[in-house]
């Protein structure tokens, strides 16, 4: 079964501090992992996907198959990073995108 766990519902850091949003998954095959972000009063949008191996807005995420994790990291958080972040998993051969419950990140000035 596919499952995505985001252990922190809320995360608060100060501007300029490093931030890590945790995501753990369970899936028996080869998953695709994603991070989606929802800023206040905006729609859900893709932040990054593991197959792209890119950095978006200073965020990176590395797929660790041994630990079944896909944590999102940024070395220096900015106030505009405050948003709701969702980790999501899609099986290689299916269309069922499974989302975690989300982590609300607040970056304080």
């Amino acid at each position, binding site marked *: 079964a596919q499952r995505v766990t985001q252990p922190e519902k809320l995360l608060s850091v100060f501007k300029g501090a490093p931030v890590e949003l945790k995501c753990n998954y369970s899936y028996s095959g080869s998953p695709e992992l994603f991070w989606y972000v929802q800023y206040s009063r905006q729609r859900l949008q893709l932040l990054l996907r593991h197959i792209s191996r890119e950095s978006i807005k200073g965020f990176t995420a590395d797929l660790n198959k041994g630990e079944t994790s896909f944590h999102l990291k940024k070395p220096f958080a900015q106030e505009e990073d405050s948003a709701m972040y969702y980790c999501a998993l899609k099986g290689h051969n299916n269309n069922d995108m499974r*989302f975690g419950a989300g982590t609300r990140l607040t970056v304080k000035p």
Partner: protein
Amino acid sequence: GAGVSQTPSNKVTEKGKYVELRCDPISGHTALYWYRQSLGQGPEFLIYFQGTGAADDSGLPNDRFFAVRPEGSVSTLKIQRTERGDSAVYLCASGRASTDTQYFGPGTRLTVL
């Protein structure tokens, strides 16, 4: 260009009534998804269309829920005999293909009284 649009933005109905929620995907996107998001949860997959056909409806919770996409563009999610537990935000997303990025609409907030 225009993004995914959903109408209505809010829908309040009474228990037992029938509702229809509409999704207009980005022009040219063949893949279309419906999700349901309950308070404090992430989006939950309901159904996926590739063109006009429902390629995967494994997420529909029961037979009160049905969705169509007759011309491969606009899709309608239909809920019969609504229950209070159906209250949620219903999200639609579209993509160029099933492997493409999903672009989300603003959602329809459904409240069943």
